[in-house]
């Protein structure tokens, strides 16, 4: 049985507040936090300004007068002595700790246990990946890599919160200054544009190669994504944001990263479910060495690569002009 509630009652419910918060029509700070406008700097004529500066200078010279201020002199000497002593102590402790470490490559080392032996002996059969490292981080330890991707995603969210400049709301003087700063960039640098035109396609193709060949040789999603991101940053530097906004906007990044992270989580859920319940996975491992092999690893690599490339580019755009 469903019943209608009045507008007044609906306004008090939690779902209404959640809907408003999702829409962005509700500011959680309004009415909750005491807000005060920034103090406006007082107008002063040049005479007052000179007087204030002189007072400050006199005060500083009086405080930092080494000749007379004995306390400061003693403090400086003690500070330097203590810092040197602390550094020496730290170096000594670290060297003593290093001398107790086991020798490199000794078969009796605690690192050489049955776990690494299992990875080396059965890795190729179980994961289908020629590159044992990729097989480890995207199959045996895929949960860690999922966490790393989410860490990157959360880092981007934090950078967005801190550095994003909202164009619609009122701009204060600082925002305008930031915009002026980006207007001073050389707009059509012929040398940079020529170099970018030659270099950007190979860089991005190399990044795609590194992502797709992650299970066959050195490489993988993270490094390939970083290479693609670097190529995109070079492209932006040469041709400006108008050219990249044709194919890469904030909404594109949002869709791409959410899709990639969701795809990663879903495929990993599947393999965790089958693995924990000893069900045979329907995804074929393929012949080791072929490009379409090693089950889910290729898909996971592509997902991680998309997230990392978008994150690198978003970091750059946020630092450069606070939004794109």
């Amino acid at each position, binding site marked *: 049985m469903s019943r209608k509630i009045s507008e007044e009652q609906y306004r008090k419910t939690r779902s209404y507040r959640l809907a408003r918060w999702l829409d962005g029509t509700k500011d959680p700070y309004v009415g909750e936090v005491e807000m005060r406008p920034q103090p406006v700097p007082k107008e002063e004529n040049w005479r007052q300004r000179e007087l204030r500066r002189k007072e400050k200078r006199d005060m500083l010279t009086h405080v930092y007068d080494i000749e007379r201020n004995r306390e400061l002199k003693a403090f400086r000497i003690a500070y330097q002595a203590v810092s040197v002593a602390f550094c020496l102590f730290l170096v000594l402790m670290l060297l003593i700790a290093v001398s107790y470490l086991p020798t490199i490559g000794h078969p009796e080392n605690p690192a050489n246990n049955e776990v690494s032996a299992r990875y080396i002996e059965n890795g190729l059969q179980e994961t289908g990946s020629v590159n044992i490292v990729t097989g480890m981080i995207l199959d045996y330890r895929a949960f860690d890599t999922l966490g790393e991707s989410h860490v990157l995603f959360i880092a981007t969210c934090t950078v967005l919160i801190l550095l994003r400049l909202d164009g619609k709301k009122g701009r204060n003087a600082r925002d305008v200054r930031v915009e002026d700063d980006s207007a001073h960039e050389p707009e059509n640098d012929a040398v940079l544009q020529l170099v970018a035109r030659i270099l950007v396609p190979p860089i991005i193709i190399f990044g795609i190669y590194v992502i797709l060949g992650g299970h066959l040789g*050195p490489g993988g999603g993270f490094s390939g994504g*970083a*290479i693609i991101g670097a190529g995109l940053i070079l492209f932006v530097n040469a041709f400006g944001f108008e050219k990249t906004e044709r194919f890469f906007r904030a909404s594109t990044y949002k869709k791409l990263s959410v899709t990639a992270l969701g795809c990663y989580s879903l495929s990993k859920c599947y393999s965790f479910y089958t693995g924990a319940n000893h069900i045979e996975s329907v995804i074929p491992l393929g012949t080791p060495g072929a490009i379409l092999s090693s089950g889910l690893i290729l898909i996971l690599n592509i997902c991680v690569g998309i997230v990392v490339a978008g994150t690198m580019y978003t970091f750059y755009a946020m630092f450069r002009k606070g939004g794109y």
Partner: protein
Amino acid sequence: MTVFNCILLVFLVVCAVSVSLSKNLLNSILIFMSYSLIMSIIWIILESPDLAITEAAVGAGVTSVLFFLTLKKIHAMMKSDQEEDERKDE
């Protein structure tokens, strides 16, 4: 190979010390970049090419670009910028 290793390691220590001792922030970032490059060569010698690729792309590439941008934002990139700011303050 041992000699080459030793040269690289000495370079690494020199780079790490000179990053903190350099007065110019731009120079520190460039030295930091070369530190990452030497580190990636050392990763190749230690037979981990995966890490070498990541170190070269992230350490030498993207991190340095973000550092440059930050320096530009705080107007520490060029002498003329700083002087202009000081003049504006006065």
